[in-house]
């Protein structure tokens, strides 16, 4: 399981910078090719994953769940929430915005809401996040992202009360598909 404990973390880069950076990293033919090459060589994949980890740990407090929610959470990582809530803050947030488990730290979902709204992405907060695949801990989410494996991690925005058909969680890897 994940090494660093989940402690709410404020990202080290501004939300605008990160939305801009994201555009550069969006999946395309070249990235898919890179991802395939990386996956074919175990040592290369390990090296890449470790690099990803050290970058993302520094900027986001990343714990390597392997299924990145950052693009739709204002780049504040919900896996740094001690309860790892992917769908918004719990009811225990302190009146001053502190985390109920680490009162000195600001609730990461408060940070997420503020950043998403400031970056013009308030609609992202209405998305429903599906359960994650716990087998992906330690894997590279960039490779998963470029390969299109985490396309189904969340629903489209839409704040009205109409129940949405969430279907089944989309498995990130091919592993276990035979279960269907």
């Amino acid at each position, binding site marked *: 399981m994940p090494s660093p404990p989940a402690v709410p973390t404020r990202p080290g880069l501004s939300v605008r910078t990160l939305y801009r950076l994201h555009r550069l990293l969006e999946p395309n033919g070249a990235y898919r090719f890179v991802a395939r090459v990386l996956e074919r060589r175990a040592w290369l994949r390990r090296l890449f994953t470790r690099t990803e980890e050290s970058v993302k740990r520094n900027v986001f407090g990343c714990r390597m769940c392997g299924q990145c929610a950052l693009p739709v959470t204002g780049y504040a990582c919900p896996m740094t929430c001690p*309860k790892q809530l992917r769908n918004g*803050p*719990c*009811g225990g947030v302190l009146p001053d915005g502190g985390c109920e488990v680490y009162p000195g730290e600001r609730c990461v979902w408060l940070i997420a809401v503020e950043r998403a709204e400031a970056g013009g992405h308030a609609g992202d*907060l209405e998305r429903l*996040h599906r359960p994650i695949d*716990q087998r992906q801990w330690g894997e590279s989410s960039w490779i998963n992202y470029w390969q299109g494996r985490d396309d189904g991690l969340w629903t489209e925005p839409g704040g*009205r009360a109409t*129940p949405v058909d969430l279907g*089944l969680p989309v498995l990130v890897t091919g592993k276990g598909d035979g279960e269907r």
Partner: protein
Amino acid sequence: MVSGSGLAGALRAGRFVVTAELGPPRGADTDVIREKARALRGWVDAVNITDNQGGFVRLSSLAGSLVLLDEGMDPVMQLTARDRNRIALQSDLVSAAALGVRNVLLLSGDHPSYGDHPDAKPVFDLDSVQMVWTARNLRDRGQLLSGRSLDPPPELHIGAVENPFAPPAGFRARRLAKKVRAGAEYVQTQLVFDISAFTRWMAEVRELGLHERAHIIAGVGPIVSPRALEHMRTKVPGVWVPDTVATRLLRAGTEGFTEEALRLCAESIHRIRDIEGVSGIHLMAFGREHLIPEIVDRSGLDRPRFEVNACGSRERSADAG
């Protein structure tokens, strides 16, 4: 919507409902639950059984719910994400429905660091929105998260919670919208002491149309002593007691404290009842369940019709037994 529970029926009928919370004991004995349940019978539509509340080990909510059924009452079984992964959650939901427990209330739960086993592994495999959606998937599609089918699917009345007072204030109704979109049919709120903040939140709830999709049940409870007040203000995450309320209670002095707390409850219920879109009151008395009938009585809430006659209900449950 499948559901044959008393609470679901009352809500569907548009009656202003009353639910109460009952904390199971620490000990291998059901007598305490029976006693508390009997004191509530005929006064409330349904009784919540908490799930190791605050991370303190107690009798399980499924066991407590079964005792309530045995006493002829409608249980609301609380289940947290703290102690069960998706396998245990789905199994508990199916088991509950199979045994006749229809109302389930799905919440993320307090972190173990607050309870009597801070050294425990916090599970949180799913969050509360995902739990609600999982329950709906089981019931409406007869499908496990794995995609495997389930025959027959469980009949469930799916509930969720919301804290209208926790930051970020402007996001709380939108967060509830996610639970409703996932499949929540009723919602019980955190204790309401700040009526104006609750009124503001309800306006947002109505704006999103949530009150038309789910029944909103407002949490109310008495703070019975200066010590309880201090505890509530400093130790219970998510409870917001405004200064005006605290001052009013403290001014009553130690002698008159409980009386003032009960009066405050009745007043709050009157004011909450007038807010458009509220479907009922959820009473939380934290171990002082014997105060609940008095609160119901004072606030003039309707008692459940099917048990207006306490003797009749006792006969009925005796028949059932």
